[in-house]
């Protein structure tokens, strides 16, 4: 009797598996994808640049300053602040801006770059630190990393300014 019940259950299970297979492209895949998308997860800030702190509009383009991103656990990177200038199409050929990164009303860095016509090329320019908390760099020449870069990405020029850690870690 028990063996018969097990057999029936096994075939029911097999039928359910087949039904699931049929449902994969029409229902299941989309449902699971939506569940993952709405699970409250986010891509690590070392890739995305983190949350927006402030945005300033200069005519046709906007300068967006992000909140500082700190390494998590043993992440092998320096802390940084991301700045984006978008859209690239609206940027003047040469951009020169003094930017307040920490919201104290004083400029912390001076960013200057030339926008290349090819969207796959990197802008050439430099970041000059006006506040000792930040590290300046020049591009090209400096090695790009997640903490220090100046690139074109998704229709914007993305600049990441490393934070110095004098004295303490954070």
């Amino acid at each position: 009797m028990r063996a018969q019940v097990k057999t029936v259950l096994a075939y029911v299970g097999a039928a359910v598996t087949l039904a699931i297979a049929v449902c994969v492209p029409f229902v299941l895949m989309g449902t699971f994808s939506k569940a993952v998308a709405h699970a409250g997860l986010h891509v690590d800030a070392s890739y995305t640049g983190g949350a927006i702190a402030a945005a300033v509009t200069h005519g046709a383009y906007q300068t967006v300053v992000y909140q500082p991103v700190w390494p998590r656990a043993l992440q092998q990177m320096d802390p940084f602040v991301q700045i984006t200038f978008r859209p690239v199409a609206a940027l003047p050929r040469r951009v020169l801006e003094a930017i307040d990164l920490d919201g104290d009303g004083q400029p912390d860095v001076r960013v200057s770059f030339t926008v290349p016509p090819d969207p796959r090329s990197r802008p050439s320019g430099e970041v000059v630190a006006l506040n000792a908390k930040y590290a300046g760099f020049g591009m090209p020449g400096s090695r790009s990393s997640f903490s220090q870069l100046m690139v074109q990405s998704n229709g914007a020029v993305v600049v990441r300014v490393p934070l110095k850690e004098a004295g303490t870690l954070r």
Partner: protein
Amino acid sequence: MASSAARTRPPAFRSVGRSILLTVPVAMWALLMFAPTFRAPGRNHHLGASAVIVFMTTLFFLMMRTGKTYRWRRYFFVALGFLFPVGFIASLVAVRGSMSIPIERMVSGDTPFCYMVIPLLIIPAALARTLIFPGSILPTASNPHSIAVMIGLWLAMTLVLGKAWCSYGCFFGGIEEGFAAASKHAKIRKLDARLRLVPWAILLFVVVLSAALFEPVYCMWLCPFKAVTEYPAVHSVETAIQMGIFIALFAALVIVLPFLTKKRTQCAYFCPFGAFQSLFNRINLFEIRFDRDKCVDCTLCQTACPTMALSVESIREGGTLLNCMKCGACVDSCKKGAAVWHLKGTKVALKPERARLLFLYGAWAMATLFGGSILASSIATVIGFLPLR
């Protein structure tokens, strides 16, 4: 000679009529899956889809007609393994001009998501709600293979396939299966059985380290298939070392060792995702069992198994090891009919063909859906390269 061959040819497993009848649902499924392709314009894509429909339907028919599974599945799997990189690399070169991922693509979340990363995401996602992969959660115009889409697809397919993902879903395993098939005889026959525990150790290693470093350690340092897909741009000693590791692992585990051993050495001795996927064999209803009344312990099945998922002890106990990916090689090789497809909960060897059919319909549906669409797109890419009008 010909008449002698005809005399010795074993009888067909199933009649042509019955085989066609059993193949009809698969043909209809394939047509349904590729219907959107035919509705959209694009001659090359139509040709690719047509070729895949014919290919997948024919292979299933041959499985039904001959009763062999591994032999015909292998054609699909090897084609997938070799054509996937062709299509993928071509699309990378078209979009980026190179196989390397520049940092700007990572920053913009344009890295296509690969299921190999899934085990590495679990701990950071659970503890910090963070996905340690430079992709986007939702699909975008520049990255349709987003994290949510690929995890959703993997999850749904895993419910059907379990560890059989590794023989019907994975687009990497076919490369080594192809190199293993290229060799007539195994040059290396003795392999330490403990080696099949290495994927579990690598899984533990990459999961722990990824959680500690907050980066996908396997993708950064160990994935052999980076050599034929995409890799971080080489700009430092560290990235050069990473590239060297990718190439060395690919050459050793995917080309040389499969050729010498006739085994899928990367899958059997290295792949942490395969080890992770083995855990789903526990919840999957289909498995391979051994009818101990018929088994003569000849170990032909053990020799045939491409991933070392059989041991003398497991065969004596009438089953496989946890890493069995249900490719059917052992069943095909068994001359006594002792190795059989089995539905958990039923009596072993009572209705093995019924269990095989129930499994194959689900598995082939998933193979057509996922692998088939990759094949079609890659074939369309290849046709695009040909000097045709």
